[in-house]
């Protein structure tokens, strides 16, 4: 079948009217609706992260809508899968902005996807609020004069490493092996810890990377065992960590275990519940500790059963921050992508579980950093650190 140029032109005109003509992605007014796009990893090696975020955003949106919405606006959700990959990160935000016509985007968990999507959100003109990506480049590239559409409320690995590396040194560690996921999150964190440990006089004996979801860590751990560092700092997600610690004990390693990621999480505790002792003594620097938000625990249990995941909790707070921005935009009289972006710069409120949310000129908020320890199948907070801008 041949399609004439007239048909193509007509079809194009219809598409322009349907999508291009819809200048406002959300309608303001007494019964307005704001669509939030969630770009995260629903498939791929970190799919557990995306599943948690989907659940967290649902819980938050349902609760906000039950209480009358954000400034009277009903929140709805649209999702897109970025598979933790940069190229899919771009596709996901394009789909959310162009097809779903969202007003604002929450995401992504994976640093690589966030970084890849940043030029696209700037080009389209839609704000993206990032909740768990920890690559420091996001900080460097965000804010007025850089990318004024990008916001992040979790602290990054440059900020965390400045405190956590010192903490590890103060535990008597003089030599350390670094192992991390071979992606922007893992490599970015490794770079920061190498730098900080060098400045603190801690010798880094090994730098090892592994594929997300790798089945076997024995070759890598054997190397670490041979080089005999005092401690291992692993930049890792819960499912991989649950396998890694088993092989750590199998090989008879004695190094103290420090972590970055979501090892002190409900998902890790679930994965080692056959032998909770496996997690004993692992100390981790992270963004959120399970059990610190009874209200979220209750809502999650009621909606999904079980306990919230770390990324699910952060997505839950992300929706709360967006709702706060929507309230400000409603007060100021219009809800557009730009007004929500502008409102995000004026958000200033405190979420008890994570701390104060106020964005600086890098569009970075300085929520708490937590250092906690896994002990007897529970996660115990050792210290909560009020963070600030990275020191040069």
């Amino acid at each position, binding site marked *: 079948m041949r399609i004439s140029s007239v048909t193509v032109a007509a079809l194009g005109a219809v598409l322009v009217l349907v999508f291009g003509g819809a200048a406002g992605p959300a309608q303001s007014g007494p019964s307005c609706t704001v669509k939030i796009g969630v770009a995260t990893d629903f498939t791929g090696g970190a*799919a557990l992260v995306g599943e948690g975020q989907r659940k967290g955003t649902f819980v938050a949106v349902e609760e906000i809508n039950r209480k009358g919405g954000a400034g009277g606006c009903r929140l709805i959700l649209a999702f897109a899968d970025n598979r933790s990959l940069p190229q899919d990160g771009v596709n996901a935000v394009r789909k959310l902005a162009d097809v779903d016509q969202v007003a604002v985007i929450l995401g992504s968990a994976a640093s690589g996807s966030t970084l890849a999507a940043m030029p696209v959100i700037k080009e389209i003109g839609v704000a993206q609020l990032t909740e768990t990506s920890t690559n420091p480049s996001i900080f460097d590239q965000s804010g007025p004069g850089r990318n004024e559409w990008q916001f992040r409320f979790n602290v990054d690995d440059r900020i965390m490493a400045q405190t956590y590396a010192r903490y590890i040194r103060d535990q008597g560690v003089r030599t350390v092996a670094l192992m991390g996921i071979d992606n922007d999150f893992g490599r970015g964190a490794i770079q920061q810890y190498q730098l900080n440990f060098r400045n603190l006089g801690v010798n880094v004996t090994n730098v090892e990377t592994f594929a997300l979801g790798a089945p076997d860590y024995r070759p890598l751990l054997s190397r670490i065992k041979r080089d005999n560092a005092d401690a291992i700092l692993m930049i890792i997600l819960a499912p991989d960590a649950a396998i890694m610690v088993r092989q750590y004990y199998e090989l008879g390693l004695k190094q103290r275990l420090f972590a970055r990621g979501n090892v002190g999480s409900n998902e890790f505790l679930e994965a080692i519940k056959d032998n909770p002792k496996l997690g004993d003594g692992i100390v981790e620097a992270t963004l959120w500790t399970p059990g610190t938000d009874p209200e979220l625990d209750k809502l999650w249990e009621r909606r999904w059963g079980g306990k919230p995941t770390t990324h699910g909790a952060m997505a839950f707070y992300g929706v709360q921050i967006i709702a706060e921005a929507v309230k400000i935009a409603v007060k100021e009289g219009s809800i557009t992508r730009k007004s929500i972006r502008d409102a995000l710069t004026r958000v200033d409120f405190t979420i008890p579980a994570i701390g104060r949310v106020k964005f600086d000129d890098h569009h970075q908020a300085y929520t708490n950093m937590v250092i906690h320890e896994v002990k007897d199948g529970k996660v115990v907070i050792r210290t909560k650190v009020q963070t600030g801008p990275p020191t040069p």
Partner: protein
Amino acid sequence: MDFVLEQLVNGLTLGSLYALVAIGLALVVGVLRLINFAHGDLFMVGGYLFFLARLGGETPYGVAVVATVAGMALLGYAFERAVIERVLDKTWRVQLVATLAISIIIVNAFIYMWGLNPKMAPTPLAGRFLELGMIRIAAQRLVIFVVAPVAFMAFSMFLQRTRTGRAMRAISQNREACLVVGVDPHRIAGVTFAISAGLAGLASALIVPLYSVQPLMGTLLTFKALAAVIMGGFGQIKGALLAAYVLGVAEAMAAGFLSSSYADLVSFGVMVLVLLLRPQGLFGRKVGI
């Protein structure tokens, strides 16, 4: 020296993992000339079956293994009847799309049913460690080292000495001639898939106690197993087995002596090198055109 031995053990462990998955894949390629891209997902389904069969540790390990292998063999037979039979005479493109589609459906169905949090199904042997000189190893790994070659030998004997095994080899050599002498290719296809899935089930039952079960576990393994099948000589079971161990040892040595970042580079580099030197694979026959 101890470090070399330890990396060798690590390599053989990885090799066993790849070999157990690759044998079933090579069998289907050899007999039916079809690449089953859902094979790694059958391994994953076997993992869940084993997890269920263990009943949280209530069922003895041996019983759970037998139940998993039997269940997977039945499932493999049903899979062949429901899907493969319909595409067996079609072009490779149709077969590729069909098996890839099944892979996607299986993975997503399991994500929907089980979620993505990994399930653990440890055995007492997985938590018992043996000291062999300077090398420490879980007893479960020794079970894998022993059972994998034994399973392979039993399977070879089946192919050599039974009527069905000979019919499978005959089909792999000349399908048309088999039709002439009365071998039923549909029955053989069903049996081939039952054995292939049964082997995937055995692989799961041996390996899952050391690792975990989650819906995406088969995806990476399919590619590693496929690399072993290609390197071994397309459809050559002995070749796939040897290639799987070569890949496993190459990966472990690369991780041990270079860096874990180079593990995949070295293992796939070895594959490319083998194919450059022997384009027909380790055990493949030269074909003239």
